[in-house]
């Protein structure tokens, strides 16, 4: 294949990615009003092969958005409502005593809702750490182990979790190891004032729009390969690394606020996540390579849940977003 053909294939793949991305977005927006940035971030996680955490107060349509994405993509979808009394076997699956045709009994494994492609983990912080930890293997290894049985999960596998930031009583905050497995953490805010009218019309008129399947799991997997083939220039790679290292206390690139108020910085997994999310953004922006602007754009969503503010920072009202803002201002793109 000569250079011209290579360019044509790349341009065709990139164009296909943009088309599918736009179709899914349009289909979901038939039901979800506004929240375009949230929808973009959720689709970024879907195409980048990661998981996403949606955090927002109740009533903002988080669950509805994830359900709509599941309907638009046409992948096996399951919803888990996390409760404090939920056990790992409730989501992973367990052996159930079943009656056979001959009148006998046997133990059969019944899969839990985690065995799916698009999993909505609703109010994930209401479950105990024991149940939350059951997600670790599924999110990272894409498999579930119950007893001696290991189940490979079907790709594309994506966990979209929601949690409520204000109602903390009776909840169990996710441990850092679990948070790190989410590619992005998106903060869902209130819709714009002009969007409220459309929300009322669509949800209270008795005419709920139907969401059609505009993509498939196979197409999602193909587009994931396209995302992985987006090249990253050396300067952008270094900039991403400097940003992540700059958010680690005690590093050479860390600003003062990081050294004073951050107890735990992002891990190397954050660099991977920055790269993947930046690749998706570069494709959606119509470019063929990652730029520093892409890294800056996804830095908040990628690094927000990977920065743990210490006690003094929490007392002074320092948030992870403020830390990231300072890091972005402090760390300059490398010259070459």
């Amino acid at each position, binding site marked *: 294949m000569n*250079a*011209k053909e*290579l*360019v044509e*294939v*790349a*341009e065709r*793949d*990139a164009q296909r990615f943009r088309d599918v991305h736009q179709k899914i977005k349009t289909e979901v927006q038939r039901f979800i009003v506004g929240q375009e940035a949230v929808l973009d971030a959720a689709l970024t996680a879907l195409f980048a092969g990661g998981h996403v955490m949606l955090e927002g107060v109740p009533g903002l349509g988080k669950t509805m958005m994830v359900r709509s994405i599941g309907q638009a993509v046409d992948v096996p979808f399951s919803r888990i409502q996390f409760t404090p009394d939920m056990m790992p076997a409730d989501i992973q699956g367990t052996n159930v005593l079943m009656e056979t045709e001959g009148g006998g009994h046997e133990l059969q494994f019944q899969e839990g809702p985690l065995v799916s492609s698009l999993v909505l983990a609703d109010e994930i912080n209401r479950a105990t750490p024991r149940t939350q930890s059951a997600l670790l293997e599924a999110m990272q290894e894409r498999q579930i182990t119950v007893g001696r049985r290991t189940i490979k999960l079907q790709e594309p596998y994506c966990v979209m979790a929601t949690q409520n930031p204000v109602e903390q009583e009776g909840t169990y905050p996710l441990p850092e190891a679990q948070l790190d497995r989410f590619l992005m953490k998106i903060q869902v805010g209130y819709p714009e004032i002009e969007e409220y009218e459309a929300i009322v019309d669509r949800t209270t008129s008795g005419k709920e729009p139907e969401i059609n399947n505009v993509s498939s799991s196979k197409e999602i997997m193909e587009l994931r390969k396209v995302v992985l*083939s*987006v*090249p990253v*220039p*050396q*300067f*952008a790679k270094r900039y991403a690394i400097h940003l992540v290292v700059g958010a680690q206390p005690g590093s050479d690139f860390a600003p003062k606020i990081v050294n004073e108020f951050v107890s735990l910085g992002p891990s190397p997994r954050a660099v991977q996540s920055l790269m993947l999310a930046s690749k998706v953004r570069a494709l959606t*922006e119509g*470019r*063929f*390579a990652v*730029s*520093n*602007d*892409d890294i800056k754009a996804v830095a908040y969503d990628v690094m927000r849940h990977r920065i743990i503010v210490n006690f003094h920072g929490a007392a002074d009202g320092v948030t992870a977003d403020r830390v990231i803002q300072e890091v972005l201002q402090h760390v300059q*793109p490398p*010259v*070459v």
Partner: protein
Amino acid sequence: MSETNRTPAEVRAELSDLARPVAEQLRRGLVQQETRRLSGLAGPTLAFPATYLFLVVLMAPLGIDLQLPWLVLVLLTVMLPCCRVLLRWYQAQQQRVADAVALRAIDSELQLADRMATAHEFVEVAQPDGFQLAAIRDAQQRIQAAHVARPSRPAVAPESPRSLSVAGLAALALLWFASLVTVAVPVDVANPGGERQVAAVAQKPSEQPLDIVNQPKPEVKVAAQRTPRQAQKDSNSSSVSEDETSSDASRRGKNPIGSGRSAEARAAAGGGSERGQPSNQAQSTKGEKSAKPKAKKKPKSKKDGAEKTEDQKKPPQESGSTLGRGSGKGSSKSPTASPWSAKDQVVSDDEQDPEEDEEVDDENDESKARGGVQPNLRQRKPPVNRDLQISMGSGKPQDDANGRGGPGGPKKQRGVAQLVLGVTFPDHISAKPNPGMSKITQERIEPQAQQGDSINGEGRGARAAPMGHLSRRVLSPWMQDLVRSFYLSLREEGGPQ
């Protein structure tokens, strides 16, 4: 060849053409920025004045005059910042802005999202993949537009010279302080009796020229401002000083200027003098009062300085002298006197050399003649610590103990403390209140056979003694009949007999 089908080498050349003028523009801006940056010049501006002041203060006690003309000082002060500016300019001239940096600037100015810089990197790849070629092609389509809309770097405005002006003022202040030091110190070195000159300089520093040191007879000028009584006193002390300098030069080595005086001299000084301070017989004027601190800082010879450092190394001892306290009982605490008064307390007549006694008498006379200003500083060692408490002989003897009351060694107390038993004896025994640990000793003893009386067994026989009283329950008649009939029927059936 169409515009979008160029080879990577051609694209590289186009990118270089695009980057070259911008790189040159960036280099010029860098030179301009470096040469106009004034904030970094404050340090070099202050470097020479600070160093000059330090050296002047350091060399003044040694008698080395580092005084320079003001023109030279200002030139040397300005020289370092100018060198710094020239160095910056040279470095900025030598610096070369890379094409990648220039292309990044173009991307930033034209909001191209790093397309040019990305293409510049990808054209260097040996075998680019499809997306890299697509990125190069994407940038190639925008090169012409970038040529048209080339960014123009705004001229760098000079910084506010506030820091530099502050540094300049500070440099002038440092130089002025240095000039003050150069004036004041050599006066004391050149003229031992120049206290009044220093006082005059201190009163009107701005009116004194810098070469006041070299004036031949400043005493005349200053003495005209004094009262006749002060002049008389000054003449007396100057005569004493002249005698001292001529005949007692070696003795002055032992008695450094500015030290204390003897107790007799203190007593002769009258009640107006403060304790521990040398007194003047005449009332001093305001100018003299101001001159006193300067006189204390009068530079001394190296020998005097060495003695002073030795005295300073000694640990300070609490003064137990009753001088000036009006108490004749003596101190119960360690009586260490001031250096000149300690001589009378410590040194005995037997141990003193007769020649030294004469010298001491001469010095006392001289001290009286000087009005107590020049103290007798012979044997400035502090007296031994005569602790009158019972030391039990555990104290470490001092090096300067003369065997007449110093601590350590044998008991040397006086008075009531002498009567107290000074021998240590234990008043208790260290032991534990419990019985202590018990000791268990095991002995291995072989068993020994013993003879015992054997007893044969025999039958006990029937009971012969009465059984005693047995209670018998009286049954009712119907119950007796019931029991008799029960056993009768049981016998009839062949039951148990």
